[in-house]
Every structure is written in structure tokens, then in C-alpha cells.
């Protein structure tokens, strides 16, 4: 069980990395149309995420691959059960990625408007879908005795239904919460990376996002308490886990404090801490369940969904090497592209 527990937290951490990193470039997309008013500002937003966004997205692929490897039964059950939303997420990822890369290739205003809007819509819908996906994992899914389920996009919008859909009022609430959280997070990132009017607007949006995040955090915490009692039970059984919600709380307070003090970078790190605290609280509360079932007996846990002992232990060796290398590359890249972006960076540099 020790190995399975290690892998559970490794995958949770990889997903956290994904949400922290791709989260800020999704957030940049969410505020793209509001924060950046003219062509030059929009190019600056894209330049701020340009060298890193596809690397950030790799964390999603790597986490999916690692999930497949460490918990093949979970991968098989959840990916087939969440068939439709996953495919929609893939389409959104495709359109959004294309939008980022193609937007500035031609200067025709309609071309740019189209891709700016695609970037905004793709980022916004992805944030909502990721949030709703998390909501589904917390609420539980209608797994049967042979560990299969299939969820339509919606049924009767009740999280207490025997045949819940992907979207009900609870998962939609979590989707909205993800949207405003990433809006705040992305606005913090853009504040760090820009100056001038764009910077002022990004900070204003970060502040609005903060209030919305506060309200939705309270609402969804209360809702989660009723929808998935197991999370509360998890914290009662292992009270030391309270540090995770405390981390989230500290992050939320810190974001506001440093944002007000004009310390953009610290505010950004604080919103990282907030997201990390929330996600780890969820993972900790669910542990050792990895996918709760509507009928608790059918739930997938770290023991009935995991790969073989030998596979997990061999994997630990190469995975540790791989992830250390990855952290090194990321530190290297982020260090190289440190600092604010300015209009000179956005010129197409071949001289045309």
C-alpha cells in the first residue's frame, strides 16, 4: 500500500503542476479580451505565455500517462466513462493551441479577431470543464460491479441522482469556481509579466477575480460538505491534513494582501498556494479512494485500481529521474524567460 500511496500523491502533484502552470495561461486566455484592448496588448499577452504554454500542457499529458501506468483500472474506467467531456476537452485544447500559434501570423483584423475569440472561448470553456471534471470526481460516478460507467453530459442536474450527468448543479458550481480561480491566477501572472495600461487592467481583473473566488470558494465548500461526506470523514480520521485547507486559506489571504501591496510576483505565488491547497485538500480528503462510486462498494481505490507491485517499483526509479530532469528544464526555461515582456519581444523577428 505504501507504493500505491506514493503514486497517488505523485499523480496528484503532477495534476497540481498542470493546474498551476497551464492554469495561468488558461487564465491569460480568460482575461485576453477584457484586459488587452488593442492589437499590441493582445500580442503582449500571447508573448507572455508563448515560450511556455505548450510545456505547461505537457504536464497534462504526462499526468494522464502516469495515471494510466500507475492505476490502469482507474484510467480505463474513468476515461471511457467520461468519454464525451474528455473528447470535448481535446477539441478545445486543439482549437486553443492553434489560436495561440496562428493569431499573429496574418495581420488581417478579421483573422485576428477570430483567433482572439477562439483563444478566449477555448480557455474559458476548458477552465469550466476541468472544474466540472473535478466536481465529478468528488461527487462520484455511477460505477457498476464490473467497474464501468458511462455518464451523459447531463441528466436531471441533481448530484444526488442515481444516474448523474457530467453537469449538475454541483459540478457546474465547481466549474464556475475553477473559472474565477483561474481568471484570478492568470490575471496575477499577466500583472507580473506586463507594465503600463495592460498591467493596470490585469490587476483590476485580479481583484474582481479574487472577490468572485472568495464567494465561490465558500459556496462550493459548503456544497461539497453535503455532496461528498467522505471528504469530511477523511479529515476527521487524519486531522494533520488540515494543513492543506489552511494552505489554501493562507494563499487566498496572501493573494489579496500582496496584490494590494503592489507585489505582483508574491500575489501570483499566493494564488499558486491557494490552488495547490485546494487540490491537495481534495486529494487528501478522497484518499484512499481514487474514484468514488454512487454505490460506495463499487468505488475505485488505490488498492483495487493499481498496477502490479513490480511495475510500480520499477516505475518509481525511472519516473524520479524523468521528473527531476523535467523540473530542471522548467527551472531553466522559466529563468531564461524571466522578467516583463515588452513590445519589442512581439515583433516577428525575421525582419518582416
Amino acid at each position, binding site marked *: 500500500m505504501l507504493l500505491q500511496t506514493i503514486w497517488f500523491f505523485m499523480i496528484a502533484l503532477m495534476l497540481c503542476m498542470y493546474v498551476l502552470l497551464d492554469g495561468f495561461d488558461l487564465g491569460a486566455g480568460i482575461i485576453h479580451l477584457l484586459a488587452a484592448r488593442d492589437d499590441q496588448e493582445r500580442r503582449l499577452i500571447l508573448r507572455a505565455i508563448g515560450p511556455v504554454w505548450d510545456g505547461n*500542457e505537457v504536464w497534462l499529458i504526462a499526468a494522464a500517462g502516469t495515471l494510466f501506468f500507475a492505476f490502469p483500472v482507474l484510467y480505463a*474506467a474513468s*476515461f471511457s466513462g467520461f468519454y464525451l467531456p474528455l473528447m470535448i476537452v481535446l477539441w478545445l*485544447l486543439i482549437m486553443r493551441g492553434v489560436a495561440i500559434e496562428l493569431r499573429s501570423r496574418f495581420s488581417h483584423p478579421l483573422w485576428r479577431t477570430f483567433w482572439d475569440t477562439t483563444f478566449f472561448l477555448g480557455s474559458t470553456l476548458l477552465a469550466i470543464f476541468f472544474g466540472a471534471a473535478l466536481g465529478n470526481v468528488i461527487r462520484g460516478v455511477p460505477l457498476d460491479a464490473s467497474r464501468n460507467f458511462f455518464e451523459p453530459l447531463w441528466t436531471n442536474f441533481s448530484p444526488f441522482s442515481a444516474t448523474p450527468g457530467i453537469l449538475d448543479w454541483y459540478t457546474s458550481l465547481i466549474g464556475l469556481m475553477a473559472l474565477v480561480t483561474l481568471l484570478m491566477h492568470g490575471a496575477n501572472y499577466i500583472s507580473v509579466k506586463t507594465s503600463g495600461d495592460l498591467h493596470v487592467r490585469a490587476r483590476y481583473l485580479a481583484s474582481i477575480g479574487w472577490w468572485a473566488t472568495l464567494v465561490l470558494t465558500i459556496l462550493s465548500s459548503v456544497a461539497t460538505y453535503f455532496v461528498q461526506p467522505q471528504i469530511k470523514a477523511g479529515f476527521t480520521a487524519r486531522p494533520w491534513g488540515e494543513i492543506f485547507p489552511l494552505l489554501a486559506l493562507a494563499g487566498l489571504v496572501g493573494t489579496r494582501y500582496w496584490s494590494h501591496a503592489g507585489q505582483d510576483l508574491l500575489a501570483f505565488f499566493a494564488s499558486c498556494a491557494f490552488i495547490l491547497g485546494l487540490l491537495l485538500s481534495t486529494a487528501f480528503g478522497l484518499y484512499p479512494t481514487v474514484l468514488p462510486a454512487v454505490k460506495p462498494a463499487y468505488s475505485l481505490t488505490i488498492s483495487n485500481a493499481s498496477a502490479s507491485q513490480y511495475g510500480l517499483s520499477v516505475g518509481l526509479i525511472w519516473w524520479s529521474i524523468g521528473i527531476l530532469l523535467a523540473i530542471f*528544464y522548467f527551472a531553466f526555461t522559466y529563468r531564461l524567460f524571466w522578467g516583463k515582456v515588452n513590445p519589442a519581444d512581439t515583433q516577428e*523577428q525575421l525582419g518582416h
Partner: protein
Amino acid sequence: MDPSIILSRIHFAFTIGYHYLFPQLTMGLALFLVLLKALYLHTRDARYNASLHFWGKIFAITFIAGVVTGIPMEFQFGTNWARFSAYSGDIIAQMLAMEGAFAFFLESAFLGLFLFGEQAFGQKIHFLSAIMVWIGTWASGFFIVATDAWLQHPVGYAVGVGRLEIADYWKVLFNPWVTPQYLHTISGAVITGSFFMAGLGAYYVLARQHQAYGRIFLAMGVIVGLLASLFQLWPSGDLSGRQVASMQPVKLAAMEGLFVTEAGAGIVIIGQPDIAQSKLDNPIIVPRALSFLTYRNWSASVKGLNSFPRDQWPDSIDLLYYSYHIMVGLGTIFIAIMGLALLLLWRKKLFETRWMLWILMLATPFPFIANTAGWFTAELGRQPWLIFGLLRTSQGSSPVLSSGNVLFTLLGFMGIYLLLGLLYVVLIVYDGLRGPGIHQPDQGDKDSEQGMIGY
């Protein structure tokens, strides 16, 4: 077969076939980026660096297309093939996860540096980043081929309760099947890159635009192209063929269109298989050649389809047969084209020989077809098995998935990929027509100090 399984097979074949159009080009071009940078650092001729910027741009857009069409692949094992994933995830997911850990992070981090970092961080870091991108793309290819090799020839596993478990990590990773298949796949990708480069170079020389660059592209494309085309035949193609003969003889029989076991079997050059009557129509055959190529003996006996029970036959023999023949036929033509072109280059006549340039220009799309046909051969020939000898394709699907849902997403992918393909072609044509080099003459040599794309 259940309609949802048939649709899932089409879904997978379509999305992976489409996806692989891009990585084969990036794996090929990655090598050329390293070569161009090395040539620039060696000669300090600014044209090499300008060529690098030009191809770097094409690489970047192809890479992004490869990334966005690749993400669905990582998901599809679970979405459409859940029983297969649960049954063999302990083994194949090792390799898929390793691809993420060792290749994807490397590629993405250094690509950012390669595209944006030349001006700020200097030539050495830029060369290093090109090398790292090259290693990353080829490593990614290795893990994918290793995954497929295991489906073709499962090794290093133990049978557990309702699933397979990994028993020997190194055996799985260095499956004997991997080496020929990887070499064959990689040289196929280099062929794609070479023809692409030579084809565009031929266009520039023919159209009398950017001719200095056109000549560089032609020379590099033709030299590397001939080496890769020869390597594709021998040793990598030869090894792959003999491997199939010894470990998957039924696939060999089906792809060669050999219905009846025969001593001194010939190779079919052209002919249309008639499965119902177990014969070939209008065959043109080189006598005894198949026996020799397979067993190095002109009169060796080669097993035909009649030696195998019907339920072990691949289920699309005619498509398999055509895929194989298209691959081999094109591969042979590639050697002829590149051989002739290199001869002309050596005699210093290539740039004036317009008919040869026309051939090179028009040949550009064919390596994409040959590589796709090669994958069709490998995978259709594996049927009816998903894991050769262990799990049938019909046993690997997602049990709860209705055909209506699969069709919905298949149509969705077709629509999005159509749009993506149109955009890709527009961009490549646009960049290709504009050509490499300095677009504002007064900027002089400054170009070589700068990056490649902007936002």
C-alpha cells in the same frame, strides 16, 4: 464485429493516421535543423542560419499540429479501448508514461528556447537547444514504437488475475521487435524530411526565386534523402520483413498476397487479391524472389494463408495487401529518384536539369503516403489481434460505449482536422512562397542574430 468497435477502430486509425503526418515531418526536419546549425557554426555562412530560421518556422507549426493531434492519442486508449487498457496497462503504460517523462518535457522546454532564445542566449545555447529538440523528437518516436512493438510481439509479461503484469522491465523496453521497427520508422521520417526539403528547393530553383537557398535545400535533401532511402531498404526494411516472416508468418502471407503455401515463392509486384476465391487477379510476379528475400534460399517454402486457420487471418487482407505494396513500391521509387538526383548533383547538373527538379518537387507528398501505408501494413497485419496472440481487438473495446457516441466524436474530429489541415496547408504555402532569408534588404546580416517567430 460490434458497430461501436468498428467505429472505434476507424476513430483510432483516422486520428493516429492524421497525427502521424506531422511527427514524421518533425522527426525528419529535426535532424536537418541540427545539420543546418552545425553548418552555420562551421562555415559562418549566414545563409545556413537563415535557412535554419526558415525551417525552424515550418518545424514549429508542424510541431504544434503534432502536439495538438497527439494529445487525443494518449486519451484514446482509455476512452475507446478500456478493456485493453485495464488488461495490459501495467505494461504498455510504462512506455507511454516514459514518453511523457523523458521526451515531451525535453522537447517542449528546448523548443521554446530554440524558437525564442537565439538572440538572448547566443549561438552555443541555440545549437544545444536544436540538438535537444532532435533528441526529444526521436526519443518520443522510440517510446511509441516500443509500445507498438510490444503489441506486435509481447514479451516480458506474466499472466495475472484478469490482466497482464510486467515481469521484466528491460525485456519490455528492449523487445527484440523494437530495433528493426524503430530504425525503419525513423529512416522513413528522415525520408519525409528530405523529400520535403528537396521538393521546396526544387520549386525555388524552378521558379527562379530564392535560388541560393533552393540549392542548399536541394543538396542537403538529396544527399540525406538517398542515404535514408537506401537505409530504408537495407538493413531496416530487410530486418523488418524477416522479423515478420519468422514471428508473424500469417501477416507475411496476407501482405504478400500469398494464398497457398509454395516452395520457391515469387514476389507479387502488381495484382488484385480476390479473397473469396483465394487468388490474385492480373498478377505480375518475380519468380522465387520471396523465398530468397525471406530465407536467403531460392527454393525455400513460404507459408501461404491456407496454412493458417481462418480465424487467425487479418480481417482486411486486401487493404493490408495494398498498403504493403504501396509502401514497398514507393520506397523503391524513392531510391531511384534520389539516386538519379544525387548523380546529377555530383556531376553538377542537378540545378539545370529541370525535368529532375519537376520530379523532386512533385514527389514531396509521396513519403507521407509511404509512411502511412507502412503503419497500415504493421497494424492491419496484426489483426485480428490487438496484442498479438493474447488479446483480440474485439475483446479490447470500452464495453459501455455506444456506437452513436463514437460516431459523434469521429465526426467531430473529422471536422476539426479538416480545418486544421486547411490552415496548415495555407501557412506552409504562405511561408514557402515567401521563402527564407531577409525580407528587408537593409537589415543585412542582422537576421542571423535573431529568433524565428513572434506573436
